[in-house]
């Protein structure tokens, strides 16, 4: 391995000082001169006809400049199916439906105006259970769609599952469910829309997809009758993403519409309640799974039928089965696979992308049943996984090509660091679960590309313009390290600009753990081009053969002649400041050679895959059902840790989010209404819940990755829940098949196993009904 100066180092985040001193500006901190404040009125029903909206009294309020309803706006469409509008017309399909919006001179006036809007609804029968919504005669969410089942083709069958079932020596079958959880970004959503007199739009907004958002907004302008204008998307500092900013939302369009109507900049900023209620969730799933193996423990088949609660409108949540296919077909070697997923419209909140993009739900079912199958086959669960582990060079049934793969090593690391074989006390248990995730981009669109432009100034400093989005994960820093490494500069010499579509090149978005790999490769490509030109100039200036020269320590250096050396800045000054000079700038667009899925969903969607194994030691209190995590080990094959400090941050953050997913987090939805839209009742973990964690890193040097790296943004939260569920089973012999694994559920399962009723009494027919359950 070459000697690296920047890559592989624990470089602090480039923006950390500004963040530590409170200097960075989030959307909450931005004001534009003349700005108005927009507020949104949401539905009072889960499903209802909008009979009439009276806005007169709202308009009369001094300080109110615009009140809009669905009737006042053109037919702007949002969502994967274009089944959603910024303001609803005729009917509402969920409690988070936007019914009217106000722009006023202060947030208080806007709020007061909302209260003066009178909406007359006529309630419609609503449906909240996706299985019920699939039935014939169920109320339709979108009549024109004719059924509540989304017409999406999520169905694959590789090999012959039925034949394999007959052949299998051991088979397990079960049902697993997961519920709504939400991103809980600490910085809430918001946008400022502003038109110039020629109707060019500038929108400041929290987004992970600046280029695609620009396209969405341009389309909206077209629908508004404004064509051939420009849209500039400016990203403020983003207070957390985790997938939540992967789509464009009603509030952004509403800000645009209000700005257009008032000819003033309009800001919409969510408060915390709104953030809980009106942003999208991870999608709940019902998974029927069976897996089988032969006598020797070799997996023979995996058969999964899944129902996803899509909610009332489509967003990227509806497409998560595409990513679920990856663990379903390729987590472990499995020759026969069948999978079918149905996304179902209901009157619940609609789902979106959230860290892992379906992978956590699928892996929960797969890895829980892996343990069950190991037990059925009488094989140690680690050994069972080892027998079936993916290996480098494998091509799975889906056509995923495994290049580097440290899965076996990760399991080994977990075993060692967790002291797997240590004797366990009563109530103590250990569990393991593994993951596969896209680690080299994910071709979900036609392009998986990202652009980079770099320019160098007279002093050898770089301005780098990337399409990537840094929402806290640290991509700016990783990109700077890669470029500094290639150009022999210091990380401090690289200024990364990612905030403005006016200057930044195109990118498909920060999703799929793709930024280090894709944006990193794009930056590396641009740096290489620049390097070639600097060296060429250096060869002339130093009168040396090109092959002998290199960039190091901010200088062009000669391999064999220490005297022959010139500061890069000096080369640049000569380039710029001379007769017939030239500008040192380079651009590179990197679009990997990964493949779109074909008709049968085969296709190598990523250049490489990230693997990992999590292991956990828990203690379960049999009296209360409380689960305590004693030890956690999360081992990942990351290709190469470009920045171990930030990498650890991704793993720790992911694991803690995963632990929340496993144990505490859930949106409590009652007939479509969010009953816990606050941090008191929606339990994300606090510092007191931090688990003792170790995060061993395995470097397999993937040859397509920048300096060998693969993506690691999402994996941390993928196998957490099944690892914990498996440990709970090991501890007390109950298998929890429903997330989150609350003490109530554990206790109920323990009591059921012991043949006790819910109050802990022996079930005796005579007094069974005397059991009073206290909340």
């Amino acid at each position: 391995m070459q000697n690296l100066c920047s890559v592989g180092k624990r470089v602090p985040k480039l923006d950390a000082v500004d963040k530590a001193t409170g200097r960075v500006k989030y959307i909450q901190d931005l004001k534009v001169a003349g700005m108005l404040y927009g507020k949104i009125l949401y539905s009072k029903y889960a499903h209802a006809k909008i009979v009439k909206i009276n806005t007169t009294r709202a308009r009369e309020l001094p300080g109110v400049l615009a009140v809009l309803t669905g009737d006042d706006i053109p037919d702007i469409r949002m969502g994967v199916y274009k089944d959603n509008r910024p303001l609803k017309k005729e009917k509402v399909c969920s409690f988070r439906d936007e019914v009217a919006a106000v722009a006023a001179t202060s947030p208080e006036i806007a709020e007061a105006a909302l209260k003066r809007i009178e909406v007359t609804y006529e309630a419609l029968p609503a449906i909240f259970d996706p299985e019920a919504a699939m039935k014939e005669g169920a109320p339709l969410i979108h009549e024109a769609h004719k059924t509540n089942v989304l017409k999406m083709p999520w169905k694959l069958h590789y090999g012959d599952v039925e034949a394999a079932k007959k052949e299998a020596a051991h088979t397990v079958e079960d049902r697993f469910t997961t519920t709504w959880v939400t991103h809980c970004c600490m910085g809430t959503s918001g946008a400022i829309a502003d038109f110039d007199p020629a109707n060019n739009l500038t929108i400041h907004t929290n987004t992970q997809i600046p280029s695609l958002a620009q396209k969405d907004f341009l389309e909206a302008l077209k629908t508004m009758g404004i064509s051939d204008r420009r849209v500039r998307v400016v990203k403020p500092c983003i207070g957390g993403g985790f997938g939540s900013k992967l789509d464009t939302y009603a509030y952004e369009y509403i800000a645009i519409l209000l700005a257009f109507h008032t000819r003033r900049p309009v800001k919409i900023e969510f408060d915390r309640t709104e953030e809980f209620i009106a942003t999208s969730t991870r999608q709940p799933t019902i998974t029927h799974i069976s897996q089988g193996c032969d006598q020797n423990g070799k997996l023979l088949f995996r058969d999964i039928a899944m129902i996803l609660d899509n909610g009332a409108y489509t967003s990227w949540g509806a497409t998560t089965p595409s990513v679920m296919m990856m663990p379903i077909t390729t987590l472990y070697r499995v020759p026969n696979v069948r999978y079918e997923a149905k996304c179902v419209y209901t009157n619940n909140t609609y789902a979106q992308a959230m860290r892992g993009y379906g992978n956590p739900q699928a892996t929960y079912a797969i890895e829980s049943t892996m343990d069950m199958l190991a037990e059925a086959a009488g094989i140690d669960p680690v050994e069972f996984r080892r027998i079936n582990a993916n290996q480098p060079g494998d091509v799975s049934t889906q056509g995923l090509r495994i290049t580097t793969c440290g899965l076996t090593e990760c399991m080994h690391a977990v075993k060692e660091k967790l002291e797997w074989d240590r004797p366990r006390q009563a109530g103590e248990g250990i569990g393991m679960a593994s993951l596969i995730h896209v680690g080299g981009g994910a071709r979900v669109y036609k392009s998986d590309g990202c652009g980079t432009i770099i320019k160098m100034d007279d002093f050898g400093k770089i301005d780098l313009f990337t399409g990537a989005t840094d929402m806290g994960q640290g991509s700016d820093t990783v990109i700077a390290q890669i470029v500094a490494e290639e150009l022999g500069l210091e990380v401090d010499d690289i200024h990364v600009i990612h905030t403005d579509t006016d200057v930044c090149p195109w990118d498909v978005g920060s999703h799929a753990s793709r930024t280090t790999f894709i944006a990193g490769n794009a930056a590396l490509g641009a740096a290489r081009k620049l390097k070639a030109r600097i060296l060429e100039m250096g060869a002339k200036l130093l009168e040396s053969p090109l092959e002998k020269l290199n960039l190091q320590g901010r200088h062009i250096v000669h391999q064999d002649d220490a005297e022959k050396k010139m500061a890069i800045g000096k080369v640049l000054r000569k380039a710029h400041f001379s007769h017939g000079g030239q500008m040192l700038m380079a651009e590179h667009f990197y679009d990997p050679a990964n493949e779109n899925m074909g008709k049968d969903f085969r296709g190598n969607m990523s250049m490489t895959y990230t693997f990992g194994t999590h292991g956990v030691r828990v203690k379960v209190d049999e009296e209360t059902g409380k689960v305590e995590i004693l030890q956690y080990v999360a081992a990942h094959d990351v290709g190469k840790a470009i920045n171990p400090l930030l990498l650890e941050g991704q793993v720790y953050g992911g694991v803690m989010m995963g632990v929340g997913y496993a144990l505490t987090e859930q949106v409590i939805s009652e007939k479509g209404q969010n009953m816990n839209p606050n941090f008191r009742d929606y339990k994300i973990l606090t510092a007191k819940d931090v688990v003792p964690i170790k995060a061993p890193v395995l470097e397999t040097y993937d040859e397509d990755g920048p300096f060998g790296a693969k993506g690691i943004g999402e994996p941390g939260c993928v196998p957490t829940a099944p690892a914990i569920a498996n440990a709970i089973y090991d501890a007390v012999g109950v298998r929890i098949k429903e997330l989150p694994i609350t003490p109530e559920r554990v206790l109920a399962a323990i009591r059921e196993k012991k043949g006790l009723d819910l109050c802990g009494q022996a079930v005796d027919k005579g007094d069974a009904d005397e059991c009073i359950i206290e909340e």
Partner: protein
Amino acid sequence: MAHEISFIFNGNAMKMNIEDHWTLLHLIREELGYTGTKEGCGSGECGACTVIVDDKAVNSCLYLAAEIDGKQLTTIEGLAAADGTLHPIQKSFVEKGGIQCGFCSPGMILSAKALLDKTPNASEIDIKEAIAGNLCRCTGYVQIIDSIKAVSGYGEDEPHVVAFKTDEGERGE
């Protein structure tokens, strides 16, 4: 009703006319224009709005501006030295990965400061206790706790991360 109060803001004496219903958060962000103090919930549940009043970390979204009269107020902008040198806690957060999206960071850092000013040798348990009201969605708190531990006199534990690397080109079992 408006009335005049005086207080010390990041080391400088101030006099101001305030409305009785203003929260301290409103005073800082909207009236003084210092945006380093964040609002994550507005109801005392997240700690993003933490500032230090005299020696105590408080949620400025719940604290009435009027009550600052005669007191010392420290916000994140008041922590670094005048020449820009970071406060040791800030420096530690920067270096130890205590900051990702940064939205929780000002509040987190101020909670840590209030703790360490009072308990310089704060243990991990003290630290967790002191920042239990400061939510962070990005870091999983691990590196935040590391950051604070590194500047408390209590000393550092072994690193959480142990690299096990295969040699280049060799995959090994």
